[in-house]
């Protein structure tokens, strides 16, 4: 694993950005200044950052109803994300998409698809396109444990396999689909076992260890770029937040929560850095201040940004 100092600090910066962004959104949402609902990703930062840290701008991702981490890690601008959350005209989707559909195709982040597993068949098409256009670009397709029980998952995995598409299927197994524990809705121990049904190599990964995720991602991305086909990564992780808006997670076992909270991916990375002398406490403080400031700026920018006009709703139906 390439652990040079700069790289590791940048990885931490990313993790901290995702965490602070979501915490800020949560706060703003409780304030009541944000419309709709939120599906947040606190606790799952390592999967987004680890998977996407080494992607090129030309590579693609498909995301879900829980897209913030994926989008930020793929390079969607903080301002355009924040503006979208505030339903502003200069949001990454001009205020038309919203929290469940953020994205920016110019940096390879397709607008997120909120239909569970609905982005997977789309990822197949993107992979097909990358291959047909003779590029060596790849697609990281994010989805959850719950999505793995959708028909769309099955059809997509099989198609990617037979056509050897450059797709990395990143299953963020946070143990729950909304309020439903994965063990209630599938009999198998590890979702990674499903890869075999399609002839897709699979790995089980500690989804709260950003470096473990990044290593697995590196292997999978290399396979994909070489035209060796898709890989299925099961990233074991956990939500530190509710499924959506004010969800107190009454359906989760408290000791289970405690165990997982102790594996906080952001803290773990920070500790790793300090303990291995890859950075000083000052470096960390430096980064955190910088990120916090950037988020404050984004919020200020978003608040002062123009609202869309009502009639704008009639624009962009067709390209």
């Amino acid at each position, binding site marked *: 694993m390439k652990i040079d100092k700069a790289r590791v600090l940048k990885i931490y910066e990313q993790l901290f950005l995702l965490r602070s962004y979501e915490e800020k959104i949560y706060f703003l949402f409780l304030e009541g200044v944000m419309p709709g609902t939120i599906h947040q990703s606190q606790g799952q930062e390592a999967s987004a950052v680890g998977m996407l840290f080494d992607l090129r701008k030309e590579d693609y991702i498909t995301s879900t109803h829980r897209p913030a981490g994926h989008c930020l890690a793929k390079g969607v601008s903080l301002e355009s994300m924040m503006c979208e959350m505030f339903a502003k005209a200069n949001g990454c989707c001009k205020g*038309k998409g919203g929290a469940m559909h953020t994205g920016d195709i110019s940096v390879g982040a397709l607008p997120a698809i909120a239909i569970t*597993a609905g982005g997977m068949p789309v990822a197949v098409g993107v992979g097909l396109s990358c291959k047909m256009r003779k590029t060596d670009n790849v697609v990281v397709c994010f989805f959850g444990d719950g999505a793995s*029980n959708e*028909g769309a998952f099955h059809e997509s995995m099989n198609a990617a396999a037979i056509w050897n598409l450059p797709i990395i299927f990143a299953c963020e197994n946070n143990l729950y689909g909304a*309020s*439903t524990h994965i063990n209630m809705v599938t009999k198998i121990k590890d979702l990674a076992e499903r890869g075999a049904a399609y002839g897709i190599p699979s790995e089980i990964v500690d989804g709260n260890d950003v470096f473990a995720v990044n290593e697995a991602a590196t292997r999978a991305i290399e396979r994909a770029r070489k035209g060796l086909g898709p890989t299925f990564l099961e990233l074991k992780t956990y939500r530190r937040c509710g499924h959506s808006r004010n969800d107190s997670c009454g*359906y989760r076992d408290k000791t289970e929560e405690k165990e997982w909270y102790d594996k906080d991916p952001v803290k773990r990375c920070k500790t790793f850095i300090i303990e291995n002398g890859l950075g000083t406490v000052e470096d960390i403080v430096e980064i955190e201040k910088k990120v916090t400031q950037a988020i404050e700026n984004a919020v200020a920018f978003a608040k002062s940004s123009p609202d869309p006009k009502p009639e704008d*709703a009639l624009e962009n139906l067709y390209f």
Partner: protein
Amino acid sequence: MSIAEALRMAIQEEMRRDERVFCLGEDIDIEGGFGGAFTVTLGLSKEFGHERILDTPISEIMIAGAAVGAAMTGMIPIADVQYGDFLFCMMDQLADNAAKMTYMSGGTVKVPMVMRAPVGATNRGAQHAQSLEGYFTHIPGLKIICPSTAYDAKGLLKTAIRDQNPVIVFEHKLLYGSKGNRAEKSALSPVGEVPEEEYLIPFGQGVIRREGTDITIVATLLMVYKSMEAASILEKEGISVEVIDPRTLVPFDYDMVIASLKKTSRLMIVEEDTKRNGWGAEVAAQIAEDALYYLDAPIKRVASYDVPMPFAPIMENFVVPSVDRIVDEVRKLIKTEK
């Protein structure tokens, strides 16, 4: 009583009455969970157990297909569609199996099942906002109902559960009156009287929510309330609006609408579904075929504009018919003279 409570009570009474009745769906009553996205099935597993309040994987094709298979073989499933939008994921099972089995079998098979689907825009963007009535009124073999009050919700759902055919219930997110975590901002949550004694409401019988003489408005779900509000504003201008809530779209109470038109000679249809080929198109077409001569003015449809639902409340409020828009359109229509 709120609509969510009325629906829950209807399910509870029918499950007590008939052990063939059961519920299935995603997150419908996990311990410590939500009781479905809008709390309708909350707590029912306490009385009926998790066999009859069956939490499913996120597998819409299976949910709809399983309902069909269970219904064909002696059970009466009530399937919860977390958001109506997800009906698209089960479309084949509903259109090709649920709706056709009785017919394709020459009448030898029955499919007594209920699909409950929440509709309506609530600032969640295009994939969690659709009103899908118009897709399903087009499918021969289904019955489509859309209760807008607690009284209707209970009476119509009980009738649906006892019907021998597949029934789709469209419920409006802003009318449930869901409580606690699941409460909706800007919800209307009407509370209504529901009698102690049991009652059923037959399909195909509308109600006149408000009597009037100058124009007839046909509206369902949330649009009933917006139309009522518009009507009271218009009253001050001396325009007398009759508001009809058909309550069920298939079958549809054309008699009531035509009787009203004989009086008002003007028809406006208000729907949250997008305009082109929404359920209102069928009502307008049917009236233009059967009651044209009663009309003194064009048939006006006030519906969501033909775009996906935008996220920004400013735009969503523009797309969905507002009280102001209804008022304006009525004024215009009253002015037009034959």
